[in-house]
C-alpha cells in the first residue's frame, strides 16, 4: 500500500463520519416521517363541529385537492398558524378541512367565531380516535390530499407564510394539474 494511502484513508474515514454526524445535527428529531404519505386517507366519518347532525367523512376528499388541518383550542401553536390558514383560505381555492382534535365543542366554536373560520368543514374528534388513525402526534398537523383521496404530504407543526408560499401553494398547483 503506498504510504500516502495509509495516511489518507483514516483521514477520509474520519471526514465522512464527521460529515454524516454533522448532517444529523440539522435534522429535527421531532419530525417523524409519516408512513401514511402515498396511501389513501384513513377512512372515517365524524360529526361536524359546527352541526352535530351533519357528518364529515374521508369521502369528502375525493374529486378535488384538499387539505386536512388538525387543530385544537388548547394547542398554542395552532393560534399562530390560524392567521396563516385564514390567508391561505382567501388566496387559494383548495378547501381546508379541519380535524378538531380532542377539543370541546363550545371552546372550538368560540375560537372560530373570534379568529375567523378558514375551514370548509370541521370534523369533531372528541376522543382523538380518528387522530390516532391519521398518526397525529403533535398539533397542528396538515395533510395534503390529492384528487384520488391519497395523502401526498404531511406538515407537522404550524404552517408559516414562508412554507405556504415556497412549498405548499406550488405543490397544490401541481396536484391540481394532475388527472383525477
Amino acid at each position, binding site marked *: 500500500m503506498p504510504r500516502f494511502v495509509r495516511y489518507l484513508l483514516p483521514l477520509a474515514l474520519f471526514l465522512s463520519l464527521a460529515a454524516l454526524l454533522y448532517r444529523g445535527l440539522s435534522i429535527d*428529531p*421531532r419530525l*417523524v*416521517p*409519516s*408512513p*401514511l404519505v402515498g396511501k389513501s386517507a384513513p377512512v372515517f366519518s365524524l360529526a361536524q363541529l359546527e352541526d352535530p347532525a351533519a357528518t364529515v367523512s374521508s369521502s369528502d376528499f375525493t374529486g378535488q385537492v384538499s387539505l386536512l388541518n388538525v387543530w385544537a383550542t388548547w394547542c398554542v401553536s395552532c393560534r399562530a398558524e390560524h392567521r396563516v390558514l385564514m390567508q391561505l383560505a382567501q388566496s387559494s381555492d383548495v378547501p381546508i378541512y379541519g380535524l378538531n382534535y*380532542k377539543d370541546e365543542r363550545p371552546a372550538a366554536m368560540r375560537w372560530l367565531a373570534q379568529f375567523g373560520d378558514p375551514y370548509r368543514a370541521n370534523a369533531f374528534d372528541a376522543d*382523538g380516535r380518528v387522530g*390516532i*388513525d*391519521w*398518526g397525529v*402526534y*403533535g398539533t397542528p398537523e396538515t395533510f395534503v390530499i390529492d384528487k384520488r383521496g391519497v395523502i401526498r404530504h404531511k406538515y407537522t407543526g404550524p404552517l408559516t407564510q414562508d412554507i405556504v408560499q415556497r412549498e405548499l401553494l406550488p405543490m397544490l398547483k401541481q396536484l391540481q394539474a394532475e388527472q383525477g
Partner: protein
Amino acid sequence: MKLLRMVLFSLLCLQALPAGAGTEMFDFSGNVDEQRYMALISQLRCLVCQNQSLADSDADLAHDLRVEVYEHMQKGENNRQVVDFLVSRYGDFVLYNPPVKPSTYLLWYGPFVLLAFGLILLVKNIRRRGRQSQERFSPEEQARIDALLADEKRQERGQ
C-alpha cells in the same frame, strides 16, 4: 455524617422516579395478560416525549395509545398485530427495536463491518510482526553476534 448524606441522597433518588405514568386502571382479570401488556408498552416509544416509552410517558397521546394497546389485546390480538397497528400509523419510529430492512442495514450491520475491518487489520499486524521476528540475520550480523556471545562466555569463565 456520610451515612446521613447517603440516606438523604437515596431518598432524593426515590423521589425522582417517574411518578404517575401508566395511571390507567385496566382490568387484567380477563384475557389480557398484565405482564404481556407491560412488556409491550415498554417496547413502544412515545412520539411526544421521544425518549420515553409508552409505559413511562405521561403525555396525553401516550395515555391514548396505552388504551389503544389494551383494547387491541382485549380483542385477542397478538403482539405482532398490536405493533403493526401502531407502525402503520406512526411508522417504525414507535419501535425501540428498528426492523432490519435496506434503510437500516448500515445501523444493523455497520458495527460488524467495522469489527471485521478491525480484525483484518489486527491479523495483518500480528502476522507482520511474526515474520519480522523470524527474519534471519545477514552472515555479517550473525558473525558479530557469535563473536559477542563468545566474548561474554569467555568473560564469565574468566571471573
